[in-house]
């Protein structure tokens, strides 16, 4: 992006901020924002299609191959190994994005309560979001948040995670 002269660092971080806060895949949200900022709605549409089309074709080819070979034991084991590797990958991504949250007590509490609400209590996602979300936002309501450097407000650490960006 920077090499093409499309966006400066500040623009990139701003887009990242919106992408991480809004629902949806971060990479897709980023594509929308950058496309919209450069060329309006048409730009947003083109960049989302550009981001999703190649992967869609590949995943559908794999899906069709899987449909016709799904009882093959070797393939089953291969896919199980991939899922196990994905657990390692997702753990690393979560840790990397959540580094800041794992340091501060109120954040740790919200992380744990959210995790238990979904994974242990099996509450529905909208219940969890509507229940815990407002409480968590209230904890950081304007007059209690201490003035910090702008960078400190980002829920992630800048840099060093672009290779994991597709999550």
């Amino acid at each position, binding site marked *: 992006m920077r090499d093409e002269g499309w966006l400066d660092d500040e623009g990139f971080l*701003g887009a990242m901020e*919106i*992408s991480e*806060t809004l*629902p*949806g*895949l*971060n990479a*897709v*949200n980023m594509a*929308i*924002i950058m496309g*919209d900022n450069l060329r309006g709605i048409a730009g*947003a549409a083109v960049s*989302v299609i550009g981001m*999703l089309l*190649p*992967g*869609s074709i*590949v*995943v559908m080819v794999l*899906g069709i191959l899987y449909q016709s070979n799904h009882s093959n034991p070797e393939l*089953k*084991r*291969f*896919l*199980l*190994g*991939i*899922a*196990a*590797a*994905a*657990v*390692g*990958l*997702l*753990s*690393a991504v*979560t840790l990397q*994005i959540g580094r800041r949250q794992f340091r501060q007590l*109120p954040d740790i509490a919200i*992380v744990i309560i*959210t*995790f238990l609400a*979904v*994974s242990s209590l099996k509450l529905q*996602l*909208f219940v*969890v979001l509507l229940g815990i979300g407002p409480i*968590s*936002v209230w904890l*950081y*309501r*304007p007059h209690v*948040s201490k003035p910090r450097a702008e960078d400190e*407000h980002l*829920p992630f650490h800048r840099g060093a995670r672009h290779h994991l960006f*597709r*999550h």
Partner: protein
Amino acid sequence: MTRLIHLFLVFSLLSVLAVGGGTAVLPEMQHMTVHTFHWLTDGQFRSIYSLGQVAPGPNMLMVLVIGYKLAGWAGMVVVGIGFFLPDCIITLFVNRWWVRLGGWPWRTSIQRGLAPVAIGLMMSGTYAIAKLSIVNAQTLAIAVVVFGILLWRHINPGVLVLVGGAAYVLLS
């Protein structure tokens, strides 16, 4: 037709609830597709999730395969639109308002407050896949080794998961 409508409703609901990205909605997606609607088994859900890991681009594109498996090409289209379009529209609108919200103090509060919720949801998504895939010592070892390698070096995750799959075929 009823199935297409159900697919659209389920995946568009997941779309607007995806605070924290695709991983954050995995438990709900698994619950709905496997337990509520009995569209897939746990094993099928896990296998389709793995296909998404191998394809380039966002790995949540695997939802297209779920749509295709359940209702053919129409299912694929309906799930793709349901899962991606609502978020795109939300992001487009918010992007245009965001700058104007610059001086609004709650903007930072919302960002700051939703961040730990998103992390908790991502942990739940990771745990959901772990419950489906960590079934023996070999799978546990693969997950731990991949985790360790990624903390240590920046290696293309797509290559790493392929190696993980091949390693399990050899180890089991």
